[in-house]
């Protein structure tokens, strides 16, 4: 695997400050198992980047490296360099709690807290020290509007967050994250467990907010990647037990119309995975 070389249809940046994420030679281990190797990648600000690849190819693992959620799993290790706006997120003295306040995350399963819709959205701002009811009201309304959910829930804000539909729950989770004004929004297959109407609404809101928030989405759905993203990265684990690699990365239009690597072409045209 050491011979592997990623193909780039866009030139890798040399100045970390021009990128949102600046990743060079990233390695990841679960215990003795080397899950990811030699990942180098730029994530551009104010754009949507999609990570695609077959199941188990490490794209979710990579995503969870980006806000250090993997720290919660015992016995994991990270090597290489990952900079957020030029700051090393694995540098000494970097607080994962602080990092996660800047980088929001949406999970595959909607996971609202078993509390009211209002309290769900107000959770983050309260953590950050917003106390006044009026300010919280503002933030809740604003965030729910940005998450395309306000119209549906404005009269039931005190209802339990688990009592609404799965698609609404997922948008509630998005509103909850947007309420803390993250710089980056990580989405781990956000649409795989919900209804098509909500998928549409989520794709719409991604287009609306991407100017303010850098979005990275992991998806299995090729059409979705093509529809919503500006950049695409293709991950692959070719042999079970071997680490996964980044095969190809670049503009979505390039990847989907003129892939450089044969394996990318095979995957996109549905020949494997």
């Amino acid at each position: 695997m050491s011979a592997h070389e990623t193909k780039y249809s866009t030139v890798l940046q040399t100045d970390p400050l021009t990128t949102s994420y600046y990743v060079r030679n990233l390695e990841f281990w679960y215990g003795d198992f080397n899950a990811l190797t030699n990942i180098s990648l730029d994530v551009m600000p104010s754009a949507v980047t999609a990570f695609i690849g077959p199941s188990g190819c490490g794209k979710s693992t990579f995503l969870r490296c980006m806000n250090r959620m993997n720290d919660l799993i015992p016995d994991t290790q990270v090597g290489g360099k990952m900079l957020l706006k030029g700051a090393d997120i694995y540098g000494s003295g970097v607080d994962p709690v602080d990092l996660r306040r800047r980088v929001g995350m949406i999970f595959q399963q909607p996971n609202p807290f078993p509390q009211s819709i209002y309290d769900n959205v107000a959770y983050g701002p309260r953590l950050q020290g917003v106390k006044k009811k009026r300010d919280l009201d503002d933030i809740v309304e604003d965030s729910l509007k940005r998450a395309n959910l306000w119209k549906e829930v404005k009269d039931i804000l005190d209802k339990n967050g688990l009592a609404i539909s799965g698609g609404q729950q997922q948008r509630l989770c998005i509103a909850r994250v947007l309420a803390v004004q993250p710089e980056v929004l990580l989405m781990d297959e956000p649409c795989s467990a919900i209804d098509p109407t909500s998928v549409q609404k989520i794709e719409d809101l991604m287009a609306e907010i991407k100017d303010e928030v850098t979005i990275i989405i992991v998806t299995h759905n090729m059409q979705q990647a093509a529809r919503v993203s500006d950049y695409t990265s293709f991950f692959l684990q070719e042999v079970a037990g071997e680490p996964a690699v980044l095969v190809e990365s670049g503009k979505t239009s390039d990847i989907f119309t003129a892939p450089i690597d044969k394996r990318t072409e095979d995957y996109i045209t549905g020949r494997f995975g």
Partner: protein
Amino acid sequence: MSEDKNIESVEAGKEGLRTDANPSKKTLTHTPSVAMREFAETAAQREKPPEVRPATKLQLVSRSTQIKEAALASLFFICAFLAVLGVALIFAFVAFRAFPLVTEIGLWDFLTGTTWSVAEGTFGAVPFMLGSLVVVGGSLVIGVPLAVLTAIFMSEVATPRANSIIRPAVELLAGVPSVVVGFFGVVVVVPLVSALVGGAGFGPLTAWIVLSIMIMPTITTLSEDALNSIPMGIREASYAMGATKWQTIWKVVIPAAKIGIIDAAILGMGRAIGETMAVLMVVGNAPQIFAGISAPISTMTSQIVLEMGYSSGTHRTALFGLAAILSLISMSLVLTVRLVSRDQHKKRKKVKKGGVA
């Protein structure tokens, strides 16, 4: 559940075939009890001469097998019914033996009387009810926080390796017989309390310490179950928002597990009220009104053990009266837990439709 349905439909099919052959027995199939119905069916079958059956009938299971099945089913039912019978018998018997209290002492005098004297023949339950209340209340104040914090530590903080030591330890503590804990109280806690607050060392303070050791494992185990049933996803969501571990525990996990933790505390309370030997050995056993943390008192349970052996007549009736109060309290605690968790169950059901992992 659904395999039961399969079997039911098979049986329903058989029934249909059978009633065709013997329509006069049809009404029997409407008897309410399953076991009785099956008995009736097999009885009906025994009466039937075999030549009445159409030759085409599918009959692979022999009649003797069917009879055996039905007989076994009713045997199991009887066993299950014994549990109901046992409880009913206990409650009925205690009530029956306590009932003469109404005429011999007077219910009101018994429940409000503050003097208990066998020699004078006055039996007021207040010192023991108050004693139980004081002892249980104090032990909950010490035991519940310790137990819940331990449970939180186990489910949220401890590594699997640490838990492989803590969990067996808690289970083992639950298994230590109350007479051993009481003995430990006598030889260790009593001298300690005596040295700290003076007096003989027998009294409420000692009972609080000993009793909280008794109830802690119950509350810890049940609270930990409640905490573990909270989906991992909502913890991740909270961490991903930049919450610290404690913020996640305090603002997300505990509110979500609240009902389970309350249940655990109620069941711990039930355990404390019924606890006998450990309390008996350290509380001092003086039928007096609570007068400070080191003044000996007595509880309902300890008084029964102490005096049952030599009691007779009205005295014995009064002891059964204490037992009746105890039974009523423990029964109502079970009912409370049922009501609380049923409400939560309903809520969960409604919520499940949302498709939460």
